[in-house]
């Protein structure tokens, strides 16, 4: 077992760690909506719609707003 952090990291330098960390935060705080992320949101929305009558109605009201976003996510292009 390593005795200090330098041993624990071995050959890796702080530059490698910095790269990983920057990527992690980039993913975490990204405001873009690629297809993968959209698909990940689906189960939550289905669960919300199933929770009750009023929640379903509110979610359906949102649908027209969502269509262009879906299109954008599928085609990968931004519509003007």
């Amino acid at each position, binding site marked *: 077992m390593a005795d200090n952090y330098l041993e624990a990291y071995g050959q890796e330098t702080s530059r490698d760690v910095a790269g990983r960390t920057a990527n992690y935060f980039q993913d975490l*705080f990204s*405001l873009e909506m690629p297809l993968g992320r959209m698909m990940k949101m689906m189960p939550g929305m289905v669960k919300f719609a199933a929770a009750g009558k009023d929640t379903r109605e*509110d*979610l359906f009201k949102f649908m027209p707003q969502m269509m262009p976003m879906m299109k954008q996510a599928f085609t990968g292009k931004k519509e003007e």
Partner: protein
Amino acid sequence: MPRPDKVAQIPKPEQIFFFKSCVASNKYPGIESCGWDSLEILGVQPVDSDEQTCCGGFVTFANVAAPTASMPAVARNLSLAEEKNLDTCVLCNGCWTFLNEFGHFMNHNEEVKGSVNMMMNMMGREYKGTSNVYHIAEMYYRLKDDIAKNVKRPLKGVKVATHYGCHYLGGGKYTAIDDAQMPTYMEELIEIMGGTVVPYTANRECCGTGFTQIINGKDLSLEHTQHKLDSVKEADPDLLIVQCPYCHSQLDRVQQQLNYRQAAAYETPVIHITQLVGLALGLAVPKLAFAAHISGRKRLEDVLDRIGR
């Protein structure tokens, strides 16, 4: 010294959105009932909503929740007040900083606000950023003339020490009504209600909860709290006033734990500022819910006997 310009900015509304706190509801219900009733007596009608959840500050800063979840949670809770066109009044320092700081961040960051609002729209809500968040202690300071008029049970001869807590003054050093290092507004309130202020050395020190340290690093937490409690014990106040339910829970419960672990004798009653105001405004004793308090129960009864039940 309180900043007069900041105090003047606090409105004196007819109604206010009463934001309930987790610890206040589930551990010290007196804070909730006294906060509600005292605002009513002072001419501000509190309004609540059962859709209001926890502010989400604990799970966020405990790193249990991804930080991306915190912004929508704050926006949702604030939008409840916005729907009613009211400002928000919170009982807890943590709620105050969390709602204030993250709300401020969203108001100044259109991109984030847009993406949060997309999620809000899905559930038929919208976050506009129009509701200001006020701590109940600063509301009291704004309404201090009304408090002076309505005192029914003067705190004559009661020695009171104060603990301001960290997140109101420290976390909001530009938005709070008082200076972070030498606050005095709670002392002023105590004197208005007829109490005697007892100074002690460790006044501005943290209560020692350390957010998650009471669970993860209990040694550190207890050691710091003991330092604080030693200083309080030296000054020997009848009551220790806090303005944050989380500090309340730490200072109250740790006394018992230290008494058990080290055979110490810490017996200082800790009460929240809402309960002190409720006491002075003459609320009925069950309303104060002192039965939920753990340390210094006997002394609390003595105080009640002295100033009248």
